[in-house]
C-alpha cells in the first residue's frame, strides 16, 4: 500500500483489511513470542485495538504489514516484560502444548525440519525474532530492522548468532536449512 492509506481507509476498514490480509500471519508471529494459544488470542485482540486507535497516526511511510507487525511485536514484548507474564511463566513448555489437532508426522525428513523449527523456537527472543521474521514473515533484513527498531547490521549479527545457536542445538547430519538451491 502506498500514498496516504488513512485517506483511503476508515479505521474500521483498515482493521478489517488487516484482519483479512494479515490476521493469520500476525497471530502466528505472536505465538512465536508467547508460545501460548490463549495469550496469543488476547494479544491479537490488543493489537487490533491498537491498530484501530492508532490508524489516524499511520502516515503510510512504511508498509501496512510492517506497521502491523511492529505493533504486534511491541505488544508481545510489553506482555513478556509484564509482571503478569513472569508470574505465569513456570517453565517453557511450549512443546507440550501443541495444537490438539496436530497430526503426527512420521516422515523422517519432516522430523528433521521440525527439529530445526523447534531449535528456532527455543532461541532467546532477540535471536528468535530475526529468524521468525525472516522465515515466517518473509521479511528482508531491512524490514526486520524497521520493525524491531534496530539497524541492519545488528539484524545481520543477530542472524549469524542465531544460525550458530540453531546449528549447535540440532543433531549432526541434519540438512543445512540455509543452502539455497540455484
Amino acid at each position, binding site marked *: 500500500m502506498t500514498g496516504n492509506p488513512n485517506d483511503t481507509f476508515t479505521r474500521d476498514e483498515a482493521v478489517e483489511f488487516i484482519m483479512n490480509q494479515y490476521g493469520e500471519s500476525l497471530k502466528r508471529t505472536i505465538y512465536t513470542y508467547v508460545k501460548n494459544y490463549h495469550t496469543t488470542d488476547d494479544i491479537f485482540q490488543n493489537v487490533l485495538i491498537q491498530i484501530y486507535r492508532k490508524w489516524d497516526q499511520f502516515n503510510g511511510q512504511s508498509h501496512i504489514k510492517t506497521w502491523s507487525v511492529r505493533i504486534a511485536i511491541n505488544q508481545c514484548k510489553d506482555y513478556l516484560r509484564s509482571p503478569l507474564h513472569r508470574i505465569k511463566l513456570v517453565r517453557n513448555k511450549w512443546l507440550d502444548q501443541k495444537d490438539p489437532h496436530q497430526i503426527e508426522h512420521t516422515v523422517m525428513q519432516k522430523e528433521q525440519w521440525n527439529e530445526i523449527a523447534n531449535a528456532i523456537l527455543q532461541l532467546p527472543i532477540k535471536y528468535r525474532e530475526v529468524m521468525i521474521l525472516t522465515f*515466517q514473515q518473509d521479511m*528482508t533484513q531491512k524490514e526486520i530492522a524497521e520493525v524491531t527498531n534496530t539497524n541492519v547490521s545488528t539484524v545481520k549479527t543477530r542472524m549469524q548468532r542465531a544460525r550458530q545457536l540453531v546449528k549447535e542445538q540440532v543433531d549432526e547430519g541434519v540438512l543445512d536449512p*540455509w543452502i539455497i538451491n540455484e
Partner: protein
Amino acid sequence: MDHQRVKKALDRQISERPLFTNKDKERFYKKKTHPDRHSFFHLPKLITALFALCIAGASIYVFHSDHPFQKSEPVNVEETPSPSPNEVEDISLIEKIDELKHLLLNVPAQEDAAALIERYNGIEVMADSTTRIEDGNELNLLKQSYAFTENTIDPLSFQSDWPPSIQSFQREDLDLALNLEWIDQEDQPLHLAKAELFYLAENGEEIVKELFSLYSMKHDFKKVSGVNQPVILDDLILSSIGRSLNKDPDSLTKGDLLELEKLTINGSHLNGIYDVKGDLEYFEAMKSLRVLKLNQAIMKDTVFKKIPSLEQLTFIGPTVLDLSSVQEGLQNLRYLNIMNSSFNGTAEDILKLESLNIVTLDPTVVPEYEKLQFEGIDVRW
C-alpha cells in the same frame, strides 16, 4: 526450497490449523463496542490512571464544588455495525474475491474451499489428477477449475475456453474463474499448492489474473492485468522465458510472465555483453521471479527494481565490476553469486546490498571477506 521448508516446519510447529478465525473478528467487534474492562495487560496502567483520576477528580471537586455531581457527557464510542456475513445475494465481486483469497491463503481444507465456492455459485468445470517433479520429489496433484456464474450454464461449455476468454467475461457468462492445484500425498489431507483467479478489470477491456503459489517467498496473491497481451521482447529473452516455463516463446502472454519463477539468460554465444531490456511493464509482470542467472548478460537497475521478488542472482562473465550500477535495484536480494563474474570491488560494495544473507565469491578477489562474515553474511566459495 529450503527457506520454504523451514517456514513450513515453523508453521507446523505453531499450528497445523488456522489460528485466525471468525471468532477473532467477532471478539474484536464486541470489544470495540464494549471495551474489555478485564484486560490484565493494562492493570498497572489502569491503577496509575485511576490514581491520577482520583487526584484530578478531587481537584475538580474543590474548584467546582458548586456542581460536584454534575453529570459528564457520555463518552463518544464510535459504533460501526459489524460486517454482515452470509449476504451472498448482494456481495460484490471484490468481496467475493477477497473472501476466496483469504480462505485460500490460510491452509484451507478442501471441504472448506468447496463449501465457499458453492456458496458463491461456483461450478466445477474440470478436475484432473497429474504428477509433477518438485525439488526432486514426485508430487501427485489434483487440479480443479471453477466458473462463478449467476446464469444456468452447462459447465462443459467452458471446457474448450479455459481460462475463459475476455468475451466470456464481457458476455457475463461468468464473473470469476478459479483454478486450484492440490498436493495429494498418501495419508495426508490435500494441501493447496497453487491458486489462480481470473476476472474482468474495472475498465472491462482486459482480464486480471491473480496467482498464489506455495513455493513463492511471499505468502500472498500476485496480480497482473492484461493477461492475454502478447509479450514483445527480444528473441533471446523470449526463448529463455519459454524454456523456463516450457512454453512456446512465440505465444507467451503477460499472464505467463506472472508464473515465471526461475530464469537464465545466456548471452555467451553472442559477441559482447547482452543488455537485457524491453518495455518495463513486462518485467513488472514477473512478480514471481525469484531466481535469475545472467550469463554474459546484464540488466540495468531500473529493470531490477521492477522485479519485486528477486532473491537469488548469479552474474557470470565480465558484466559487473563493483555492483554500483545495479545496487539500487537489488536491495531485496538475499543471495548473490559473483564467483565467476568480473567483480573486482570490495566487501563494502557487497555490504551495500542491505538484505543479503549469502554470497558466493572468489576469496582471492575479495580478500577482506571476513568483514562480510562479521556483518552476518554467509560467505561461500
